[in-house]
C-alpha cells in the first residue's frame, strides 16, 4: 500500500475521538434513554468496556502486522478467498453506515433548521464535502479535524454550562427502575452504535508514523475513555434536564441548546450549536468514506486508491434518497438491526483474524 502519507499518534487519536464522538454525541442519548431509562450511563460504561476490548484487538493485530491494513492481514492470515468473503459484507456495511450518517444529518436539518429545503440538496452537499475531504487524504483530515473537534467540544461544554439552571438532579433517581435488563438492552444499542464501529480503524491505524508507535496505544485508549466520559456526561445532563422526556426528543444536545437564555440577548442559539454538532457527524462521515474507499481499493488491488471515492459517494447519495420512506423506519434500523449487522460484518471478522493469529503465533513459538 502507498505509505507516503502519515500522521502522528496524537492526530490518530484525535481522528479516533472525532469518529467515535462525532455523530454519537447528538444521536445516542435519545434511543439509549428510551431503552435503558435512567440507567443509560451504566449501559454506556458496559459498551465502552466492550469497545476497549475491540480496540485492544485491533491494536494487537497492528503490532503483529505492522504497516498492514485489515484487508492486508486478513489476506495473509485467512487467504484470499476467505478475505473476499469477509470483506464483501464489511464494505457493504460501511457504505450503509456512511449513508446512515448522511441520512442522519439530513434528518436533523429537515426537522429543525431547513424544513423546506429538499433532502437531496442537503445530502448531496454533505456528501460532496465529505468526498472532497476524504480525497484530500488522511493528513489533511487529521489536521482539519483537530480544529473542528476542539470547536465541537467547546460548544458542547458551553451548552452544558449554560443550561445548568435547568438541571434537576432528582430526575436521576431511581437509577435502575426496571432492574438490569433494560441496561443490558441499552448496552446492546450503544455497542452497535458507536462502539462496534471502531473496527473501521483497523483500516486507518497503519497510517501512523513508525517512529511514533509506542504512544499510540496510550493515546487511543485515552481517546476512547474521553469519548465514553463525554457521552455519559451528555446522557446524564439530558436526563437531568428533561427527565422522562429525554427519550422522546431526538438530538439531545440540540434540544438542550434550545433552552438557553442569557439576558434576552443570547437565546435560541440552537442553530449555531446544531451546526457545530453536525460538523461532528461530517467528520465521522468523512472517515467512514475514507475507509470504505481504502478497503475497496485494496480488495480490488487498484493502483490509484482515490479513483473510487466519487463513485462510492454517488452510490451513497442514491442510497440515502431511496432507502427509507419514513424517519421511524430509519430509527428502528439504527437501534434494533444495526448492532446485529455490525456484530456480523465488523466484529466477527476481526475476532476471527485475532483468534487465528493467536493460534498461529502459539504454534510458531512452540517447539
Amino acid at each position, binding site marked *: 500500500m502507498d505509505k507516503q502519507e502519515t500522521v502522528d499518534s496524537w492526530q490518530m487519536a484525535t481522528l479516533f475521538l472525532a469518529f467515535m464522538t462525532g455523530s454519537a454525541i447528538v444521536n445516542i442519548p435519545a434511543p439509549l434513554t428510551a431503552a435503558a431509562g435512567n440507567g443509560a450511563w451504566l449501559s454506556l460504561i458496559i459498551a465502552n468496556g466492550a469497545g476497549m476490548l475491540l480496540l485492544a484487538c485491533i491494536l494487537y493485530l497492528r503490532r503483529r502486522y505492522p504497516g498492514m491494513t485489515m484487508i492486508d492481514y486478513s489476506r495473509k492470515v485467512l487467504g484470499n478467498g476467505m478475505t473476499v468473503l469477509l470483506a464483501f459484507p464489511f464494505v457493504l456495511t460501511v457504505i450503509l453506515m456512511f449513508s446512515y450518517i448522511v441520512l442522519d444529518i439530513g434528518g436533523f436539518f429537515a426537522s429543525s*433548521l431547513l424544513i423546506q429545503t429538499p433532502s437531496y440538496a442537503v445530502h448531496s452537499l454533505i456528501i460532496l464535502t465529505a468526498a472532497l475531504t476524504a480525497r484530500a487524504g488522511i493528513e489533511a483530515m487529521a489536521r482539519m479535524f483537530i480544529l473542528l473537534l476542539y470547536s465541537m467540544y467547546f460548544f458542547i461544554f458551553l451548552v452544558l454550562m449554560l443550561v445548568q439552571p435547568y438541571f434537576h438532579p432528582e430526575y436521576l433517581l431511581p437509577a435502575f427502575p426496571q432492574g438490569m435488563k433494560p441496561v443490558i438492552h441499552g448496552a446492546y444499542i450503544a455497542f452497535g452504535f458507536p462502539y462496534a464501529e471502531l473496527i473501521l480503524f483497523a483500516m486507518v491505524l497503519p497510517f501512523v508514523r513508525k517512529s511514533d508507535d509506542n504512544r499510540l496505544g496510550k493515546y487511543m485508549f485515552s481517546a476512547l475513555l474521553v469519548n465514553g466520559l463525554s457521552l455519559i456526561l451528555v446522557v446524564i445532563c439530558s436526563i437531568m434536564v428533561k427527565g422522562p422526556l429525554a427519550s422522546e426528543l431526538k438530538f439531545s444536545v440540540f434540544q438542550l441548546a434550545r433552552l438557553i437564555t442569557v439576558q434576552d440577548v443570547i437565546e435560541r442559539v440552537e442553530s449555531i450549536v446544531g451546526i457545530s454538532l453536525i460538523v461532528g457527524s461530517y467528520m465521522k462521515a468523512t472517515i467512514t468514506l475514507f475507509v470504505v474507499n481504502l478497503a475497496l481499493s485494496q480488495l480490488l488491488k487498484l493502483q490509484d486508491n482515490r479513483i473510487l471515492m466519487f463513485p462510492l459517494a454517488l452510490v451513497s447519495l442514491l442510497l440515502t434518497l431511496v432507502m427509507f420512506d419514513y424517519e421511524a423506519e430509519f430509527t428502528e434500523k439504527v437501534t434494533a438491526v444495526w448492532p446485529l449487522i455490525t456484530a456480523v460484518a465488523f466484529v466477527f471478522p476481526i475476532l476471527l483474524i485475532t483468534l487465528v493469529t493467536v493460534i498461529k503465533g502459539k504454534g510458531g513459538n512452540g517447539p
Partner: protein
Amino acid sequence: MKPDDTAEHNVLISSNLSDNQQRIAKVFANCIDIKYVVYRYGPELIHTALVVHCETLTQDKKLNYLKSALQDLTAHEVGAATAISPEEVINFFGQHGVSTHSADIIEQFDQAVKNVLNGYVVIFLDQWNKALSFHSLYVESRTVSESVNEPVVKGPHDSTVEDLKKNIGLLRARLKTSDFKIEMFIAGKKTNAEVAFGYLEEAVDPEMLAEFKRRIEKVKKEEILETSFIEELIEDSTYSPFPQYRYTERPDVAVAALLDGKIIVMVSGTPSVMICPGLFVEFFSSSEDYYQRTVFASLVRLMRLVAFFLALALPSIYIALSTFHPELIPTVLLLAIKDTREGIPFPAFVEALIMVFFFEILREAGIRLPRPVGSAVSIVGALVIGQAAIQAKIASPIMVIVVALTGIASFSLPQYTLTVALRTMQFPLMALAASLGGFGLMIGFLLTLLHLTCLRSLGQPYLSTLAPLRPKQLRDVFIRAPLKILLRSPRNRYLHKKPGE
C-alpha cells in the same frame, strides 16, 4: 536564441582596437545613449584608447576616464600622456591587476557589452586583448523614506527603495553576521534584472532552502519586473485566493523574518521584499506587535482575528440570519430590522450584492484615480453608498452598516494580499448563505478550511501551528506572548534547536 547571439557568445576581445570598435558599434547600432570617446596617448600620441559607456546610466562627471584608469598605475607618477607606452599599461594591469575596488579586467567581448549596459565604463587599449571596466552606475532613485504602505507608530520608519544595493545595505546594517547569506542571479534575456535572495544560515530549514533553490531555477529565464512575478512562478497553487508569500517594504520586518528562518527575495527596480514561505497565521501579525506592550499587542491580535471573520463573512452571516434564522436575532432588534427593510424591493442577498459591489467599485476607483480627483470619489461614494441609497430604498440602513463594517474590517488587516483573498471569498459565501442559510455557511467554511489545510507554501503546511496543531507555538498566533518567552522560541526555533531534537 538568435544565431547572432551565439556568434557574439564567447568571442574574445581582439588585440586590434579598430576591430573592437567596429564590433561594438555594430552591437550598439541605433543606441543613441552609448558614447564612444577616443583618446590618444603614448610617445607622439600614436596609441589610441577607446572608452565606451552608456551616458544615461553613468555618473555625469566630466572626467577623463583614461586618466582615471591610469591613476591605477600607482607605482608610477602619472605623467604626461606622451610618457606612457602601451606595454607599460598592459604589463601593469596584466601583472598587478587593478587596485581600484570597482574596476576589473575583462576578456570576453560579450562581457564588455554587458558591462556597458550595466553602467560600467569600458576602456579598450590598442595592442591589448583585454579591456578595463570601471563601475560608475548612477541611476536616479528615491532616497530611503518613510514606509507608505506599512506605516507604524512605534519602531523604525525607513522603507526599502527601488535600488537593490541600497536595500541589501539596509538589511545588512541590521544583521551584522556572516550567517546572513545573499545570493544573486540575473534573470531574463532583455531586462537582465538582478534577483537577490537572502537567508540566515542555521535559522533556515536546509530542506526548505533546497526546495526554494530548485524552484527559483526556472525563474532565471523569465523577464522579472516585480517581486510578485517570482511569487507566481514559484508558488504552490496559483488558483488559490489565499496569498502564499508575504510582502514587506520595511527592513525591520524582513530582518525579523530572516531570524525566523524565512527566505527573502528582492528584485532590482522594486521596493517590495518577498518573504517566503508565508504562513496563514503570519498574515495577522504586524511588526508593531513586537514593539508594543504585550497585553495591548495581544488584544490587537484578537481584534484582527475578529476583523478577519467580519471581513470574510459578515454579509453572508447577515443574509443567513435575516432569511433563515431570524429567531437568533433578539426580538427587539429583529423588529427594528424588519421595520427599516419596509419598502425595499430586493431580498437581503440582492441588496447585499448590490451594496458590496458598489463598495468594491469605489475601492478600486479610489486606488486608480489620479490623486487630485481622489477626494471626489470619497464624496460621491459616501453619498451613493450611504444616505442616498437608503432614501432611494435600494438598501436598508442595517445593510449599509454591514457593508461598511465589512470594508473597515478588511482594511484593518495588516497584509493587503490577505484582504484581497477575503474580498474574493465573500461572494461565494454570500451565495451559499442565501441558498442554504447556516448550513450553506457551514459547507462554505468547511470547504475553505479544507482548502487551507491542503494548501502549502514552499512545501510547508499553510495552516502550520494551527493545523498540524502545535500548541506550544500558539504563543505568537492569537496573542503575542511577552518577548521574554517569545524570543526563546518559536522565533529563532532553528537557532535554538538542540542537536538530536
